[in-house]
């Protein structure tokens, strides 16, 4: 079997149905093999970055590994952004890159780059295959490493001569290498300790994250069970939305910089915090020395380096979230008979915070408020089988705040890296995995232009993705920070020459919709849903709306800036003069 044949065989043996890629000189033998079979469908993107994000969207919506195939040199360097994105958001992504022939490596050959060197810090692991007889084992190991433990991206770099060379193919084996043994089962003593701490809590909060989604649907189910059993309030990171349903009665909304007032206040004032598969990111914690000062912290994570990294855990539990939750639920049932009444005062306090209605905004009858657009989108799509992706910026936060997620794996967003341009190709990937579902990229006018070329791929594969652009002609989040930090000097955050998105959609062969009136919005959204091909929806929203509530930088969870307080003056003074000098 040739190396190229082995690649295709290994994809099949690892259950790959789709891969996203772009051909080039150094991967032509693999493309030749793909051409001669039907088991694995290749989706041709328009840019390698698009392939990566599409594979990420595919992975996050299915729970399987996403696969991308790119050529050497520029193909590989263009893959770097999605690789780092997948690393930060723990997405299983297998990237196969072509490389110049082994004899030419190091000679500055055409389209040569040090792929392994470049991708080393942005992958969980990577391999350069120098001998065709190692190829099969490396590919199987790559899938194993990408999908187990804390999931992440891997790169397998295959020189062209190895693709042509003949060798012996070995099927996937179960014995992984001895140095890679992720700890799955949590320490039972620690879990007991955690349950005891939780049982005695008066002001508990559960803070869940993307790890719950990554751990699989059972983990989300167990999380819901735990919440029901304990009666604890629950908040979630951006990445963890959907693990606990928005309609759940214990739901506080998202926490963090643009999270809800009640979620952040509960985090600040709690006495026991149960962090499940989240990593105390700086967008979550706010000022660290004022972060939840009086709580005991239980931290469940599969990655030992996440524990005690930013915030000290009192009860660290190393293991897979699903397994630990299983034990936790079992132990709670067996031992802890906490009286939910003890939590009443805490819930009363939460109700007071909730009454502040921190996601509120002033409705306008003449212009579409961006929050209103998301709310209407949610109301008109919630009964459907819907998947949401986003780009990065204000629209992303509004989507997180106002779109309700009832199930895990329905929400694809670039959290850790904050990659503008993620949403459109991710939507393509999701749509390929779920051809019958409604897939919407909630986008901003600036972000969407970063990978808009993938509209062409969407049309080619009849992927009826809906690109719902909240168009305010600004890089809204950049502008918001400039207003907060830089004296309202809006340096290069306004896009003076905006394309006509309707014509652009039509130019790609898709369908374009424009709407700028609140009373026409519902019909326009219904039109978008009913069109059976890719749509760009140019939703013209209030240009100067800002995203609140917000924890201004350097502030604590209990110092949120709420929308009703966010006057121009308050915004200008949210960060004190001394702080500004230090920038």
């Amino acid at each position, binding site marked *: 079997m040739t190396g190229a044949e082995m690649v295709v065989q290994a994809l099949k043996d690892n259950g790959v149905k789709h891969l996203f890629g772009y051909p080039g000189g150094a991967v032509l033998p693999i493309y030749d093999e793909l051409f001669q079979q039907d088991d694995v469908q290749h989706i041709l993107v328009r840019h390698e970055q698009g392939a990566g994000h599409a594979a990420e969207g595919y992975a996050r919506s299915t729970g399987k590994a996403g696969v991308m195939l790119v050529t050497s040199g520029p193909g590989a360097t263009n893959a770097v952004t999605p690789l780092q994105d997948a690393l930060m958001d723990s997405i299983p992504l297998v990237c196969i890159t072509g490389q110049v022939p082994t004899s030419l490596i190091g000679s500055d050959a055409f389209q040569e780059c040090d792929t392994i060197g470049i991708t080393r810090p942005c992958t969980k692991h990577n391999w*350069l295959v120098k001998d065709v007889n190692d190829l099969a084992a490396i590919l199987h190991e790559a899938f194993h490493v990408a999908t187990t433990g804390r999931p992440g991206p891997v790169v397998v770099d295959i020189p062209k001569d190895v693709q042509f060379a003949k060798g012996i193919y070995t099927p996937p084996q179960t014995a992984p290498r001895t140095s890679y043994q992720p700890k799955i089962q949590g320490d039972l003593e620690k879990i007991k300790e955690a349950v005891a701490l939780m049982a005695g809590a008066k002001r508990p909060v559960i803070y869940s994250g993307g790890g719950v989604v990554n751990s699989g649907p059972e983990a989300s189910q167990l999380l819901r069970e735990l919440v029901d059993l304990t009666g604890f309030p629950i908040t979630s990171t951006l990445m963890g939305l959907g693990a606990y349903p928005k309609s759940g009665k214990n739901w506080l909304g998202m926490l963090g910089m643009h999270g809800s007032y009640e979620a952040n206040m509960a985090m600040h004032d709690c006495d026991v915090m149960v962090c499940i598969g989240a990593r105390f990111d*700086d967008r979550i914690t*706010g000022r660290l020395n004022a972060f939840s000062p009086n709580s005991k912290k239980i931290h469940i994570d599969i990655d*030992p380096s996440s524990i005690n*990294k930013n915030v000290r855990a009192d009860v660290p539990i190393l293991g897979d979230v699903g397994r630990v939750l299983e034990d936790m639920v079992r132990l709670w049932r067996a031992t802890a008979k906490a009286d939910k009444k003890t939590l009443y005062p805490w819930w009363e306090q939460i109700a007071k915070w909730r009454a502040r209605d921190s996601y509120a905004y002033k409705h306008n009858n003449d212009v579409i408020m961006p929050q209103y657009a998301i709310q209407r989108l949610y109301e008109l799509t919630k009964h459907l089988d819907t998947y949401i992706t986003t780009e990065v910026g204000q629209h992303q936060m509004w989507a997180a705040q106002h779109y309700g997620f009832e199930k895990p794996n329905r929400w694809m967003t670039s959290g850790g890296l904050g990659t503008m341009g993620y949403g459109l190709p991710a939507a393509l990937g999701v749509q390929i995995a779920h051809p019958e579902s409604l897939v919407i990229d909630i986008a901003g006018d600036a972000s969407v232009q970063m990978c808009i070329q993938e509209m062409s791929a969407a049309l080619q594969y009849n992927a009826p993705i809906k690109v719902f652009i909240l168009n305010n002609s600004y890089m809204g989040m950049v502008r918001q920070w400039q207003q*907060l930090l830089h004296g309202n000097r809006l340096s290069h955050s306004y896009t003076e020459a905006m394309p006509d998105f309707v014509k652009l959609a039509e130019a790609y062969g898709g369908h374009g919709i424009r709407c700028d009136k609140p009373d026409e919005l519902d019909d326009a959204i219904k039109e978008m849903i009913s069109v059976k091909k890719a749509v760009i929806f140019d939703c013209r929203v209030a240009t100067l709306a800002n995203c609140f509530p917000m924890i201004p930088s350097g502030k604590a969870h209990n110092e949120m800036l709420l929308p009703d307080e966010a006057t121009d003056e308050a915004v200008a003074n949210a960060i004190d003069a001394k702080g500004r000098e*230090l920038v």
Partner: protein
Amino acid sequence: MNAQLQPTGSAYFIAKETEKPEIHTLSVLVDNEPGVLARVIGLFSGRGYNIESLTVSETEHEKHLSRITIVTRGTPHVLEQIKHQLERIVPVHRVVDLTVMAQELGTGGALERELALVKVSGTGDARVEALRLADAFRAKVIDANTEHFIFELTGKVSKIEQFIAIMKPLGLVEVCRTGVAAMNRGPQGM
């Protein structure tokens, strides 16, 4: 880790470190495969950790295992992170903080030794003095002619530094050091 500067008007919260940095010696057992050293070093540079000394060599030929000895400086919190970050690297088998282990064993510190080659050139009194001092330090002469010596010296880092400092006025030409090799006292392995 909990003390911070005044809030900055930045998107980030900049912390002022108040814990005292310590010097620790780590032993890292890795698969001896291409790029493994780059992964370890890249981790240190990428995450802003310090390397004071680094030694690497294959120690178990049949199993293709190498042992990397790293002397690093950081606060206890950072040192814990370094250990966990190293453990995440796929070809890393084990990471042992020898300094912590020595404290647990009650042996004071890990055994640490370094080898140095020191070339000294000169004639007359300086040459005689260099040889006399080398003898006092139990350095071996491994090459010499009438104008130079090359000394081989093994010992603790402090001893080697002292020897080099003394040789400086006596015609020190060049020095080559291996970096620290280390293991803990007692019968058990890492």
